[in-house]
Protein backbone atom coordinates (compact mmCIF):
# COMPACT_ATOMS: atom_id res chain seq x y z
CA UNK A 1 0.00 0.00 0.00
CA UNK A 2 2.86 2.33 0.91
CA UNK A 3 4.85 1.56 -2.25
CA UNK A 4 1.80 1.96 -4.47
CA UNK A 5 0.98 5.21 -2.69
CA UNK A 6 4.47 6.61 -3.30
CA UNK A 7 4.27 5.94 -7.05
CA UNK A 8 0.67 7.18 -7.34
CA UNK A 9 1.31 10.40 -5.44
CA UNK A 10 4.50 11.15 -7.41
CA UNK A 11 2.75 10.56 -10.72
CA UNK A 12 -0.10 12.88 -9.75
CA UNK A 13 2.15 15.58 -8.28
CA UNK A 14 4.44 15.68 -11.32
CA UNK A 15 1.47 15.92 -13.68
CA UNK A 16 -0.03 18.69 -11.55
CA UNK A 17 3.31 20.56 -11.52
CA UNK A 18 3.87 20.36 -15.25
CA UNK A 19 0.24 20.88 -16.17
CA UNK A 20 -0.56 23.75 -13.86
CA UNK A 21 -3.79 25.53 -14.66
CA UNK A 22 -5.24 28.96 -14.10
CA UNK A 23 -8.49 29.60 -12.24
CA UNK A 24 -10.64 29.61 -15.37
CA UNK A 25 -9.05 26.59 -17.09
CA UNK A 26 -10.07 22.95 -17.17
CA UNK A 27 -7.88 21.10 -14.59
CA UNK A 28 -6.58 18.47 -17.00
CA UNK A 29 -4.06 16.96 -14.57
CA UNK A 30 -6.67 16.12 -11.91
CA UNK A 31 -9.25 15.06 -14.49
CA UNK A 32 -6.81 12.73 -16.22
CA UNK A 33 -5.40 11.03 -13.10
CA UNK A 34 -8.91 10.52 -11.70
CA UNK A 35 -10.29 8.91 -14.86
CA UNK A 36 -7.18 6.76 -15.46
CA UNK A 37 -7.12 5.71 -11.80
CA UNK A 38 -10.82 4.79 -11.87
CA UNK A 39 -10.23 2.65 -14.98
CA UNK A 40 -7.28 0.81 -13.45
CA UNK A 41 -9.10 0.29 -10.14
CA UNK A 42 -12.12 -1.08 -12.01
CA UNK A 43 -9.85 -3.66 -13.65
CA UNK A 44 -7.88 -4.48 -10.49
CA UNK A 45 -11.00 -4.85 -8.34
CA UNK A 46 -12.50 -7.41 -10.74
CA UNK A 47 -9.23 -9.20 -11.54
CA UNK A 48 -8.20 -9.50 -7.90
CA UNK A 49 -11.66 -9.69 -6.41
CA UNK A 50 -11.87 -10.42 -2.73
CA UNK A 51 -13.12 -13.90 -1.92
CA UNK A 52 -15.70 -14.71 0.69
CA UNK A 53 -15.39 -12.11 3.45
CA UNK A 54 -13.14 -13.49 6.15
CA UNK A 55 -11.48 -16.13 4.02
CA UNK A 56 -8.16 -14.31 4.19
CA UNK A 57 -8.01 -14.92 7.91
CA UNK A 58 -7.35 -18.19 9.65
CA UNK A 59 -10.60 -20.02 10.33
CA UNK A 60 -12.17 -19.34 13.69
CA UNK A 61 -11.23 -22.12 16.05
CA UNK A 62 -8.35 -23.33 13.90
CA UNK A 63 -5.16 -24.03 15.70
CA UNK A 64 -3.15 -21.09 14.46
CA UNK A 65 -0.29 -21.76 16.80
CA UNK A 66 0.36 -25.08 15.05
CA UNK A 67 1.26 -23.22 11.86
CA UNK A 68 4.70 -21.66 11.43
CA UNK A 69 4.32 -17.88 11.75
CA UNK A 70 5.50 -17.32 8.16
CA UNK A 71 2.64 -19.47 6.87
CA UNK A 72 0.13 -17.50 8.89
CA UNK A 73 1.49 -14.24 7.54
CA UNK A 74 1.56 -15.48 3.94
CA UNK A 75 -1.95 -16.88 4.31
CA UNK A 76 -3.19 -13.48 5.45
CA UNK A 77 -1.27 -11.23 3.13
CA UNK A 78 -0.71 -12.94 -0.22
CA UNK A 79 -4.27 -12.93 -1.68
CA UNK A 80 -4.55 -9.20 -1.35
CA UNK A 81 -1.07 -8.06 -2.34
CA UNK A 82 -1.76 -7.08 -5.99
CA UNK A 83 -4.95 -5.37 -4.93
CA UNK A 84 -3.25 -3.52 -2.08
CA UNK A 85 -0.32 -2.43 -4.26
CA UNK A 86 -2.18 -1.51 -7.46
CA UNK A 87 -5.68 -0.74 -6.21
CA UNK A 88 -5.55 0.66 -2.70
CA UNK A 89 -2.02 2.05 -2.96
CA UNK A 90 -1.45 3.18 -6.54
CA UNK A 91 -4.98 4.02 -7.71
CA UNK A 92 -6.04 5.40 -4.32
CA UNK A 93 -3.09 7.80 -4.23
CA UNK A 94 -3.09 8.56 -7.96
CA UNK A 95 -6.69 9.75 -7.78
CA UNK A 96 -7.84 12.48 -5.47
CA UNK A 97 -11.14 13.62 -4.05
CA UNK A 98 -9.85 16.64 -2.11
CA UNK A 99 -8.18 18.42 -5.04
CA UNK A 100 -11.25 17.88 -7.23
CA UNK A 101 -13.52 19.43 -4.60
CA UNK A 102 -11.20 22.37 -3.96
CA UNK A 103 -10.93 23.05 -7.70
CA UNK A 104 -14.74 23.08 -7.89
CA UNK A 105 -14.95 25.47 -4.92
CA UNK A 106 -12.37 27.79 -6.53
CA UNK A 107 -14.26 27.78 -9.84
CA UNK A 108 -17.54 28.61 -8.09
CA UNK A 109 -15.87 31.37 -6.03
CA UNK A 110 -14.38 32.93 -9.15
CA UNK A 111 -17.75 32.91 -10.89
CA UNK A 112 -16.92 30.10 -13.36
CA UNK A 113 -20.19 28.33 -12.60
CA UNK A 114 -20.54 26.72 -16.01
CA UNK A 115 -16.99 25.38 -15.90
CA UNK A 116 -17.56 23.97 -12.39
CA UNK A 117 -20.79 22.24 -13.46
CA UNK A 118 -19.15 20.82 -16.57
CA UNK A 119 -16.01 19.70 -14.76
CA UNK A 120 -17.96 18.09 -11.88
CA UNK A 121 -20.39 16.29 -14.19
CA UNK A 122 -17.66 15.18 -16.59
CA UNK A 123 -15.48 13.87 -13.74
CA UNK A 124 -18.31 11.76 -12.31
CA UNK A 125 -19.55 10.50 -15.70
CA UNK A 126 -16.07 9.70 -17.02
CA UNK A 127 -15.00 8.21 -13.66
CA UNK A 128 -17.97 5.85 -13.51
CA UNK A 129 -17.63 4.89 -17.18
CA UNK A 130 -13.89 4.28 -16.80
CA UNK A 131 -14.34 2.16 -13.68
CA UNK A 132 -17.02 0.08 -15.43
CA UNK A 133 -14.90 -0.26 -18.59
CA UNK A 134 -11.89 -1.37 -16.52
CA UNK A 135 -13.95 -4.17 -15.01
CA UNK A 136 -15.35 -5.17 -18.41
CA UNK A 137 -11.85 -5.32 -19.87
CA UNK A 138 -10.68 -8.07 -17.53
CA UNK A 139 -14.03 -9.89 -17.16
CA UNK A 140 -16.39 -9.18 -20.07
CA UNK A 141 -19.29 -10.91 -18.31
CA UNK A 142 -18.90 -8.91 -15.08
CA UNK A 143 -20.36 -5.54 -16.03
CA UNK A 144 -23.91 -4.64 -16.82
Amino acid at each position, binding site marked *: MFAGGVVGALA*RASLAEHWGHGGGDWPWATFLVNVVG*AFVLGAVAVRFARGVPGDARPQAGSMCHHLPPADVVAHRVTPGVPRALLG*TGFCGALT*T*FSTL*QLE*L*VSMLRDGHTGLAAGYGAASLAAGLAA*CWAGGRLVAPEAGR
Partner: protein
Amino acid sequence: MSAATWVAVGAVGGAGSVARVYGTLLLGRGVPWRGTLAVNLIGAFLLGVLAGCDVRSTTYLIAGTGLLGAFTTFSTWMHECLALWQGGRRSAAAALLLGALVAGLVAAAAGRAAGVALS
Protein backbone atom coordinates in the same frame (compact mmCIF):
# COMPACT_ATOMS: atom_id res chain seq x y z
CA MET B 1 10.53 20.90 -7.86
CA SER B 2 13.78 20.04 -6.03
CA ALA B 3 14.94 16.47 -5.38
CA ALA B 4 14.15 16.84 -1.67
CA THR B 5 10.61 17.94 -2.51
CA TRP B 6 10.16 14.91 -4.77
CA VAL B 7 11.32 12.58 -2.00
CA ALA B 8 8.99 14.30 0.46
CA VAL B 9 6.00 14.09 -1.89
CA GLY B 10 6.64 10.37 -2.44
CA ALA B 11 7.07 9.63 1.25
CA VAL B 12 3.96 11.50 2.38
CA GLY B 13 2.06 9.99 -0.55
CA GLY B 14 2.83 6.51 0.77
CA ALA B 15 2.00 7.57 4.31
CA GLY B 16 -1.25 9.17 3.13
CA SER B 17 -2.25 5.90 1.46
CA VAL B 18 -1.63 3.86 4.59
CA ALA B 19 -3.49 6.48 6.67
CA ARG B 20 -6.40 6.26 4.22
CA VAL B 21 -6.64 2.50 4.61
CA TYR B 22 -6.61 2.62 8.41
CA GLY B 23 -8.89 5.67 8.45
CA THR B 24 -11.37 3.87 6.19
CA LEU B 25 -11.38 0.80 8.45
CA LEU B 26 -11.69 2.86 11.63
CA LEU B 27 -14.37 5.30 10.45
CA GLY B 28 -16.31 2.88 8.24
CA ARG B 29 -17.06 0.41 11.05
CA GLY B 30 -17.70 -2.44 8.65
CA VAL B 31 -19.21 -0.34 5.85
CA PRO B 32 -16.39 0.45 3.38
CA TRP B 33 -18.13 3.28 1.51
CA ARG B 34 -18.84 5.05 4.80
CA GLY B 35 -15.14 4.95 5.68
CA THR B 36 -14.12 6.19 2.21
CA LEU B 37 -16.64 9.03 2.44
CA ALA B 38 -15.45 10.06 5.92
CA VAL B 39 -11.78 10.04 4.87
CA ASN B 40 -12.57 12.00 1.69
CA LEU B 41 -14.54 14.66 3.57
CA ILE B 42 -11.82 15.07 6.20
CA GLY B 43 -9.20 15.39 3.46
CA ALA B 44 -11.27 17.90 1.47
CA PHE B 45 -11.74 20.01 4.61
CA LEU B 46 -8.02 19.96 5.45
CA LEU B 47 -7.01 20.79 1.88
CA GLY B 48 -9.42 23.72 2.06
CA VAL B 49 -7.69 24.89 5.26
CA LEU B 50 -4.29 24.73 3.54
CA ALA B 51 -5.57 26.66 0.53
CA GLY B 52 -7.22 29.24 2.78
CA CYS B 53 -4.01 29.75 4.77
CA ASP B 54 -2.20 30.61 1.56
CA VAL B 55 0.87 28.55 2.52
CA ARG B 56 4.09 28.50 0.47
CA SER B 57 3.87 26.56 -2.78
CA THR B 58 6.33 23.87 -1.62
CA THR B 59 4.36 23.35 1.60
CA TYR B 60 1.15 23.07 -0.40
CA LEU B 61 2.76 20.61 -2.81
CA ILE B 62 3.93 18.30 0.00
CA ALA B 63 1.09 18.60 2.53
CA GLY B 64 -1.73 19.25 0.07
CA THR B 65 -0.98 17.59 -3.26
CA GLY B 66 1.20 14.85 -1.74
CA LEU B 67 -0.35 13.95 1.61
CA LEU B 68 -4.01 14.97 1.37
CA GLY B 69 -4.19 14.09 -2.33
CA ALA B 70 -3.09 10.53 -1.52
CA PHE B 71 -5.17 10.38 1.68
CA THR B 72 -8.35 11.02 -0.31
CA THR B 73 -9.43 8.92 -3.27
CA PHE B 74 -11.65 9.36 -6.29
CA SER B 75 -11.23 5.88 -7.75
CA THR B 76 -12.52 4.01 -4.67
CA TRP B 77 -15.53 6.33 -4.49
CA MET B 78 -16.35 5.58 -8.15
CA HIS B 79 -15.84 1.85 -7.59
CA GLU B 80 -18.12 1.82 -4.55
CA CYS B 81 -20.87 3.72 -6.40
CA LEU B 82 -20.59 1.28 -9.30
CA ALA B 83 -20.60 -1.75 -6.99
CA LEU B 84 -23.75 -0.52 -5.20
CA TRP B 85 -25.44 0.07 -8.58
CA GLN B 86 -24.46 -3.35 -9.93
CA GLY B 87 -25.60 -4.93 -6.68
CA GLY B 88 -29.08 -3.55 -7.29
CA ARG B 89 -28.88 -0.80 -4.68
CA ARG B 90 -29.39 1.91 -7.25
CA SER B 91 -30.80 4.65 -5.04
CA ALA B 92 -27.94 4.12 -2.58
CA ALA B 93 -25.46 4.41 -5.47
CA ALA B 94 -27.01 7.65 -6.69
CA ALA B 95 -27.16 9.03 -3.14
CA LEU B 96 -23.48 8.20 -2.56
CA LEU B 97 -22.46 9.77 -5.87
CA LEU B 98 -24.33 13.05 -5.42
CA GLY B 99 -24.18 13.17 -1.62
CA ALA B 100 -20.39 12.85 -1.55
CA LEU B 101 -20.05 15.51 -4.25
CA VAL B 102 -22.19 18.04 -2.37
CA ALA B 103 -20.72 17.16 1.04
CA GLY B 104 -17.20 17.44 -0.43
CA LEU B 105 -17.93 20.91 -1.79
CA VAL B 106 -19.25 22.00 1.61
CA ALA B 107 -16.23 20.47 3.40
CA ALA B 108 -13.69 22.13 1.07
CA ALA B 109 -15.47 25.51 1.25
CA ALA B 110 -15.74 25.30 5.07
CA GLY B 111 -12.07 24.34 5.31
CA ARG B 112 -11.09 27.25 3.09
CA ALA B 113 -13.11 29.66 5.23
CA ALA B 114 -11.48 28.25 8.37
CA GLY B 115 -8.03 28.63 6.79
CA VAL B 116 -8.70 32.24 5.85
CA ALA B 117 -9.90 32.94 9.39
CA LEU B 118 -6.80 31.29 10.86
CA SER B 119 -4.26 33.17 8.77
